[in-house]
């Protein structure tokens, strides 16, 4: 089955990113295809590389980055939600005149159309959070 995943909550405060990660891993292990993971609302905060969780806890962003590498996942952060919350890549930082960027490896920033496209293309769009 072709699956789309939408994550609506930030890391640690909510379990939705953890659940989505476990779901994605299990789905891939069963041979399903993951068309795209779309991060919306506070979910965009899953894509910052500047978070430093305690050593004895999971690193949610790093988990996504590793899963992305392993399966060539399309991890998309919503640009409108990201702009509000201060998550940006190099291009966006330049465009907005900011002195830094913070997006983690394996994530990319794009528009809400990517979420709609996932709804159109996938057999199921699975939402985590909200």
């Amino acid at each position: 089955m072709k699956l789309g995943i939408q994550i609506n909550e930030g890391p640690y405060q909510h379990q939705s990113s953890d659940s989505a990660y476990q779901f994605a891993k299990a789905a891939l292990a069963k041979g399903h295809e993951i068309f795209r993971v779309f991060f919306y609302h506070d979910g965009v905060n899953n894509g910052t590389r500047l978070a430093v969780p305690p050593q004895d806890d999971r690193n949610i962003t790093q988990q996504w980055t590793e899963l992305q590498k392993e399966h060539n996942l399309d991890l998309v952060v919503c640009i409108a939600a990201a702009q509000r919350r201060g998550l940006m890549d190099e291009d966006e930082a330049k465009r907005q005149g900011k002195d830094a960027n913070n997006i983690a490896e394996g994530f990319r920033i794009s528009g809400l159309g990517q979420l709609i496209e996932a709804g159109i293309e996938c057999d199921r769009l699975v939402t985590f959070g909200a």
Partner: protein
Amino acid sequence: MAKKFMYMNTKAPYGTIYALESLEVVLIGAAFEQDVSLAFIGDGVYQLTKGQNTEGIGMKNFSPTYTALGDYDVNKIYVEKESLEERGLSLDDLQHLTWEDEDEDWAEKDSIRLVSRSELADVIDDQDVILSF
């Protein structure tokens, strides 16, 4: 072939950002020419109330945007009757949302469809994609 997309709005307009960011998805999604409907349940019904004034909370009042939905061909807006009643509201408390029917010489029609909880369940059952906010 177009899919049936439903945007399910469950939260009050202010207090959290879900309602505003739901509206942003709806407006972007309108460009994709899918079969779109919106549903308002629970505190989500407050999103459509008229006379919203956000001056005291220093936030943008985005409620006028709902009246523009008809221009985006978003004209199936389901409001759950029980959710209104449970909050002491009626259709009169909501903004009058309309759209113009191209097939009937641009006749102005109501966008809001008041449905019972069980009727809405059937509508939900009929959807291909549900985005819940």
